[in-house]
């Protein structure tokens, strides 16, 4: 059966657009593959025991590691989570449980807007409040900046996860005479726990890679330090310094550090997916 010319053209356009759109998607995936591929290609060969356990050697010399930055990342992000998670989860519970009114709408809106605030702005804010008055850069100031970035993220994901809990569960608990607050915490939040943990892990993964808010707060440190009131190195700051520095040796270490940071972020992201999958069967 021969089709009229118009039909042929319409189907040709359809085929063309389908191909174009598939190609665009392939291009986006290609970008990811290229970046991850380069990280492994240029970073993996530098990963060895010394890289993880030693501190940097003086500029210009070869060798050394980033133990101080790995420990620093854990400390800075750990304190950030300590401040950010409770506030974020609480705000999220509020939005899910009482967030139907005008205040709920407003808080939700502010959270979304705050989510898009440039992290560098949060950095200079944290500097003003926590570095300038003391006269010293500190890991804690960095944690505070990261916590500010975490709160709106965690609040929104927590809200969404709590909202997924079926209404019948809540009604069953209330019908049995459970007070609202215990229903909310013991039944609703408990049921949504997997989702909330996922949100927290994703939030932690996000801020673990942040650099801009740490430039004027945690500052960076070439030596091993675990004191939260002093400057501290993180992997992200280390990558920035090494990548923009003049030495080939630094560039090599920058790629290796980036691979480690990326691995850390991916590990958290995969853990997040895994937690949800456990609870909701096939996941999203």
């Amino acid at each position, binding site marked *: 059966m021969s089709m009229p010319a118009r039909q042929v053209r319409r189907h040709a*356009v*359809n085929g063309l657009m*389908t191909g*174009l*759109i*598939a190609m*665009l*998607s392939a291009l*986006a*995936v290609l*970008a*990811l593959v290229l*970046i991850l591929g*380069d990280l492994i290609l240029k970073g993996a060969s530098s990963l060895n025991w010394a890289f993880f356990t030693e501190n940097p050697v003086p500029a210009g010399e070869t060798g050394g590691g980033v133990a101080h930055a790995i420990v620093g990342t854990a400390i800075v992000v750990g304190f950030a989570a300590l401040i950010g998670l409770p506030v974020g989860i*609480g*705000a999220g*519970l*509020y939005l899910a449980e*009482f967030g139907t009114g005008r205040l709920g709408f407003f*808080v939700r*809106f502010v*959270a*979304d*807007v*705050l989510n*898009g*605030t*440039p*992290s*560098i*702005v*949060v*950095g*200079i*804010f944290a500097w003003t409040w926590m570095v300038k008055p003391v006269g010293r850069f500190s890991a804690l100031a960095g944690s505070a900046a990261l916590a500010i970035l975490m709160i709106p993220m965690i*609040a*929104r*994901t927590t809200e*969404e996860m709590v909202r997924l809990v079926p209404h019948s569960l809540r009604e069953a608990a*209330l019908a*049995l*005479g459970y*007070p*609202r*607050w215990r229903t909310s915490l013991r039944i609703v939040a408990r049921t949504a726990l997997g989702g909330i943990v996922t949100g927290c892990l994703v939030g932690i*993964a996000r801020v673990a*890679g*942040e*650099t*801009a808010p740490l*430039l*004027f707060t945690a500052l960076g440190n070439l030596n091993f330090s675990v004191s939260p009131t002093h400057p501290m190195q993180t992997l*992200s700051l280390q*990558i*920035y310094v090494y*990548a*923009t520095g003049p030495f080939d040796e630094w560039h090599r270490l*920058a*790629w290796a550090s980036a691979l480690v*940071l990326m691995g850390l972020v991916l590990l958290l992201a995969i853990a997040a997916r895994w937690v949800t999958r456990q609870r909701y069967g096939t996941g999203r």
Partner: protein
Amino acid sequence: MSSPEPRWTLRGPNTGDRAYRVVLTGLALVLPLLILVLFAQLVVSALPAIAKFGPSFLWTSTWDPVAEVYGAAPMIFGTLASSFLALLIAIPLAVGVAIFLTEFAPRWLRQPVAFLVELLAAIPSVVYGLWGIFVLIPFLRAHVVPPLKAVLGWTPFFQGAFYGNSLLAGGIILAIMVVPYIAAVSREVLLAVPSSQREAALAMGATRWEAVRSAVLPYGRAGIIGAIILGLGRSLGETMAVTMVIGNRHDIGLSALQPAYTMAAAIANEFTEATTDMYLSALFEVGLILFIITVAVNALARLLIWRVARGAAVGSRAL
């Protein structure tokens, strides 16, 4: 009997309920408080510069820490130009991904591709910067800029020598970084389009593409525009990757091959060097301008997206 509570609940809210609500409300109020304090602090810190330079801060381009004269026009221009370039590249990619994932891809392919594209958002900014310096810029220098200059060298957009760090490099890096955000939100918007829209078009004999173009995209238009504006907000405030590849020069030029500057990059670069109070204050004013622009852009994006997908936290979950 293990549970003595029933008697209380029958009498309405008990002490526990009231305390619970107060605590949660307090925690929720942290968010508006944060944004308010942030804004107020930026204004206070920027006040000396605002008082000294007035509105001309926005359109003068002298940036001279020695003479204490500051004008932010080059960074404002660079911020807008790099974000514009980024969107130019990112929109077709991201919307293409979203359409592919909701309309064309075979079912088994949707989840993995969506996951991979979302992973782009998980890559830290500083890693993008590293990749930009050592992979993208050499690639541009060897394979992209020469043909680009050969074909479009006569336009004002591709004039001058290419030294690597440039508006072009910044724009491309930004584009890759915002694709996952625009794609994730657009996808959720397209998923929210009722299937009856598609089915109606297909039943009328439309091809798949015609159904997308005439039924699905118009329905989700506001949401997709919202997604794009959200991406714009991300790229305006992006700091590290841009700082590392854009060249950091106080200059306004139309050529994408030349170095430029952005507001975020200026703060990142100069904040620790700012020795005088006026210098610091000028940088705070830059931060304030950036903050106001991004808040406005994000608010607009949210309102548009909410209109389509009511109140859903689309995008804020994107990994």
